[in-house]
């Protein structure tokens, strides 16, 4: 955001407050994401405590790969939505968020499918960690979709204003966070 005003180099109080507010929100969001990453670190750690590096042959690699690809594409559309909203393009943000919601929704549904029709014995070291870890990702994903849906409805009703722009951005960045954590979990659960 432009820091200089028509008065020249001097910044008005509202400019400074606006910049501080933006910095406050971004930093708080970073702290929030740091806090939210703790459960993922914990589940990765617990997996190696419980079952070491074992990966069962029955694991459905295809479904895991497809949902990961869908979620990664949804990450790209979420980033595109951020770019749109930074340009003040509410319609573009809504369009990109619609695509993100669709791809993210399908990816999350596929994760739910794996939870429901899993080929693993939940009474096994790998099985219980797999289900709990994927379950964590599904819950975080549902929260992310809810946040995206809220942003979509908000932009539809009240549009993009400079004060509200950051809220839309952060909705999309939260989805990016859920996808990145899923990719880390995918590598850990399916490949390593």
């Amino acid at each position: 955001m432009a820091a200089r005003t028509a008065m020249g180099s001097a910044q008005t109080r509202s400019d400074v407050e606006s910049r501080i507010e933006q910095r406050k929100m971004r930093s708080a969001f970073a702290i929030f994401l740091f806090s939210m990453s703790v459960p993922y670190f914990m589940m990765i750690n617990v997996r190696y405590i419980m079952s070491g590096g074992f990966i069962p042959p029955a694991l459905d690699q295809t479904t895991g790969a497809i949902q990961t690809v869908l979620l990664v594409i949804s990450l790209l559309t979420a980033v595109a939505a951020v770019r749109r909203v930074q340009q003040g393009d509410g319609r573009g943000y809504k369009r990109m968020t619609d695509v993100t919601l669709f791809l993210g929704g399908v990816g999350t549904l596929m994760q739910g499918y794996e939870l429901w029709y899993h080929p693993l014995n939940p009474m096994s070291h790998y099985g219980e960690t797999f289900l709990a870890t994927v379950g964590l990702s599904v819950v975080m994903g549902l929260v992310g979709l809810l946040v995206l849906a809220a942003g979509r409805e908000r932009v539809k009703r009240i549009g993009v204003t400079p004060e509200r722009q950051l809220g839309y951005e952060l909705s999309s960045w939260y989805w990016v966070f859920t996808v990145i954590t899923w990719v880390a979990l995918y590598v850990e659960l399916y490949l390593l």
Partner: protein
Amino acid sequence: MSVARIGDAPLPLRKKQIMPPVIRGLLWAGIGFLVVNCLVAYLLDPQYGDPFITQPSVVFGWIAATAGWLLGIGGLENVLLPSFGITVTYPEATGWRRYFAYSTNHKVIGIQYLVSSTGGFFIAGLAAMLMRIQLMGDHMWFFPYAGQYIETVGIHGTIMMFSVGTVALVGGLGNYLIPMMIGSNSSAFPRMSALSVWLVPAGIMTVILSPLLGEWTTGWRGYEPLAQNDPNGILFYYLGVLALTLSSLMVSLNLTTTILFKRAKGLTWNRLPMYAWGILAVSLLNIIWLPEIEITFILAVLDRVVPLPFFTAVGSPITYLELFWLFGHPEVYIIVVPAFAIWMEIMPVMARKPLFAREWGIIGLIFVMMLSGFVWAHHMFTNMRLTEMLPFSFFTEMISIPTGFAYMVVIGTLWRSRFRMTVPSLFVLMSMFNFLIGGMTGVFLADPVINLQLHDTFFVVAHFHFTIIGGMVFTWLAAMYYWLPKFSGRMYNSKMGVLGAIWVFIGFDGAFSLMFIQGLRGMNRWVPVYPPYLQGINIVISIFAFILGLGFLFNLIHIAWAMKSGKKVQENPWQSKTLEWQTTSPPAEESFAAAPVVTGSFYDYEDDDESFSIPTTPGPVSM
């Protein structure tokens, strides 16, 4: 930047509150529970015999009830609908009613937290009195069954730790004081705090109602797989603590951001008040460790709902212990770090002398925070090899060094000072004395040989009560007396205050110092009936415990009376230099009419210069 409107905002829907928010919250919570519980129990996951309550149904019912409670209290109009772009006019409560409603005023939120915490303190205290009544007899005479006694111990510990220890000095005093101490009129995220405060009564009620689902005998730690021996009360332990810790997590996110970004101009890091440093340190601990314990509890709930036997059957029982104590020991410092900071806040004011070695006080708070993550396994020495014990033993002993910095700062400040022995300073000195005993016995227990002998005895009970009650609760009382004129514009009665301090000191030290002797004589924890040779000392301890309980009640009544009817005092009766005292007492809706500018140290009492200035007209500022 252009404004793009792609739709019409709906018109405001409501102009008048239909019913009091608390009543509406309770109603929606009840409806939410009934609907979702029945849906799960009868349609989605029916079980043999069609029971009304099943393990999955009660968990999902609780989630719906908590959501209903938060939405009913005001979350619907102030958080949920606005996040979807729907604007609703919500009539703001005024007068006393705002303490029973959704409010974004940080001072109202602070009082709400303090009242909830005080309620939790006396409920848990009542449970403690019931335990002491039972321990006066030589057979099961007060509780019919041993499990009921142990469940009472668990409820006592859970509510004390999660709704008092981690809440009163952070959510309560932190929300009230921190924005004012840093020269701000609000916290960073007032809407989040407005909602998080209502998770505390929800969490306390959940734990209190846990016996409805059956007894649980794990104590405040919720140990798995021990909990598998019990009926379902443990579910409400996990869920209740989940609500309480979520509240603390939201407080920490809010206060961290507030301290980082809402400081007044000129309030640089080397001028930041000690209490703000303490809250910052404890908030970082909360941000790291609370999500960890929340996931642990969710895993334990999943074991009953799915089941996923993480800690039982094919799972690993020791993993629960490890995951619990990874959080469990930082929890102790989450409780006492704000207390250390309050010592360093009150004492220079009472000593009329600059805070001694302020930098070392801050370094102490930060190193306590950092080392607290390296000591957790000393709770599990009975499950470990000697080589594994030694690093944890080492760090446990080392953490006493930064802890000692707080003592050094306070004693150095008092040295050759013009010390005023007031009720707050008396409570701080008592707190320092008690925590010294708790801390030194902690160093003693850190030694593996001693630890293995005294593990799970009343020696440990005495040790941690000296740290928690001695360190935190006495400091809480000191803080309440110190900031009472700020809260109310009135002063306590000095004689009554001194009487209250001596009363709880005698009750506390009498009761818990004898527990050290009990522990050394082999009295284990978690037992409702002991051999005759321990009964005499148990009776004496119970009498001291009743004295202590009445002493706390006396202080509560005195503080409540003083806030309402105490003698009116000037706005800054202690002549403190910190910013919260530069507002009116009690503070107005907006604490500062104009943003203050900090120009010096808050702890320099050698001169009478002001440490701040308040500009009369706001103008351009530079960054």
